[in-house]
């Protein structure tokens, strides 16, 4: 018995020629099942399909084959797009989890240290974190040393994870990552939930992604509008004088909306667009 994409043929009889679907999905499944199964692969003779009555003529053969191939391609493309952004979202959430874990342990470590050194206080003269950890490491008793070791490990893991996320972001969202950095782009994606949602958002939404509490407080009439959400993390926004931050965030969000659509529909970097966008954003931060 010979197996083909259009069916299995025994002699001059086609055993499963009734394998027919309007969009080619059954044939595609069959093709996938037999792909790679034979030790030697041979090209097929289309006449076989004709002889056993599977197809009426050459044109019918090609037409059905095309349907199957279109189905396979479209399925794979959809899978690819859904996979990559899901990966990025999960990775970013993992990064945040590392942060949470590290901060939790650090709090405990400080409490442990305070138990041994009651005179110590972080409130009066707050010490930089790194210096604080260095201080605690000196003569650290067992339990504290154990915690500090874990914190060290989490710190290193966090750095590596951030690199991964950045890299992944520049693959999934090349233009957006160039504009705001991989991490911010990834966080925007997490806020949006999926790349399909993100690409449909107007720039006003992108501007305040991450400021949900502030946004709804404003909507309810309790506060003025939030000017930025995650975008605040971009240096051009938080480094700008306070009164210009809103403007920078607005311009940045507008360019980002274009960048996201470029990423989704084209998938490759557009240096010309990035240059122009950069100039606009810089101008927005300058005195008018």
């Amino acid at each position, binding site marked *: 018995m010979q197996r083909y994409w259009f069916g299995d043929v025994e002699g001059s009889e086609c055993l499963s020629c009734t394998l027919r679907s309007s969009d080619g999905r059954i044939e595609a499944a069959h093709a996938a099942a037999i792909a790679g199964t*034979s030790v030697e692969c041979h090209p097929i*003779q289309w006449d076989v399909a004709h002889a056993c009555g599977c197809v009426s003529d050459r044109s019918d053969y090609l037409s059905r084959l*095309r349907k199957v191939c279109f189905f396979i*391609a479209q399925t*794979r493309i959809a899978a690819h797009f859904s996979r990559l952004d899901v990966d990025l979202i999960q990775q970013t959430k993992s990064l945040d989890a590392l942060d949470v874990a590290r901060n939790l342990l650090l709090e405990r470590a400080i409490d442990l240290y305070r138990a041994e050194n009651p005179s110590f206080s972080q409130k009066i003269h707050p010490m930089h974190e790194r210096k604080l950890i260095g201080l605690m490491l000196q003569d650290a008793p067992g339990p504290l040393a154990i915690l500090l070791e874990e914190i060290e490990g989490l710190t290193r893991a966090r750095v590596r994870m951030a690199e991964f996320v950045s890299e992944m972001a520049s693959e999934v969202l090349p233009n957006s990552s160039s504009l705001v950095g991989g991490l911010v782009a990834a966080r925007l994606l997490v806020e949006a939930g999926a790349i399909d949602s993100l690409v449909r958002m107007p720039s006003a939404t992108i501007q305040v992604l991450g400021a949900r509490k502030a946004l709804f407080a404003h909507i309810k009439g309790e506060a003025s509008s939030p000017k930025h959400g995650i975008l605040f993390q971009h240096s051009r926004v938080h480094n700008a004088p306070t009164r210009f931050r809103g403007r920078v965030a607005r311009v940045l969000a507008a360019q980002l909306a274009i960048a996201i659509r470029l990423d989704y529909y084209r998938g490759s970097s557009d240096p010309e667009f990035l240059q122009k966008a950069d100039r606009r954003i810089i101008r927005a931060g300058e005195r008018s």
Partner: protein
Amino acid sequence: MIWMGNALVSKGVSGVYGERILAGYRVWDPFRSKLAAIYHLGKGTELKDDMKILYLGAAHGTTVSHIADYVEVVYAVEFAPRPMQDLLQVARIRTNIVPIMADASRPDLYACLLEEVDLIYQDIAQPKQAEIAIANGIFLKKNGMLVMILKTRSVDVRRLPETILAETRAILNRHYNVLDALWLDPYHRDHAAILCEAIK
């Protein structure tokens, strides 16, 4: 091949990628398409309307569309999702293109879809280009032709293009009859085309 003055053209539905139109014919730009460059340099197999072609590395489908204008059917193999989306668009209009989303280095995974072809055209920028051309040789008819575009920078950017061409010729010569090799200057830098015949 159809020539209008110095321009290589093909006859088919226009507007695939913004190509120039000359008296209703689509201009096939040698600076854009390496196959067109081969024809402009006086080499290459004549494309006939009863031919079946296997195109490895079909990308966005620009060269595919021109080939499809000439031949009976083009089996276009492309692996990357984004170019494939464009290729599907091209294939929706040109119904003699069979778009196959697969890894050209794994012919065993798409052999169940292919017939024997008269010509294999390969334009894949990978270090193992020659090996891919050899693995796909099973689809070639007796006396069929292989046209392999060699992007020397993709094989090894550190070494001389001439050395890489010579090495690749030697590798291919074990499985094919290498007829000719030519550099694609002035149309494409550091690219060569190796023309072979099937040994069957």
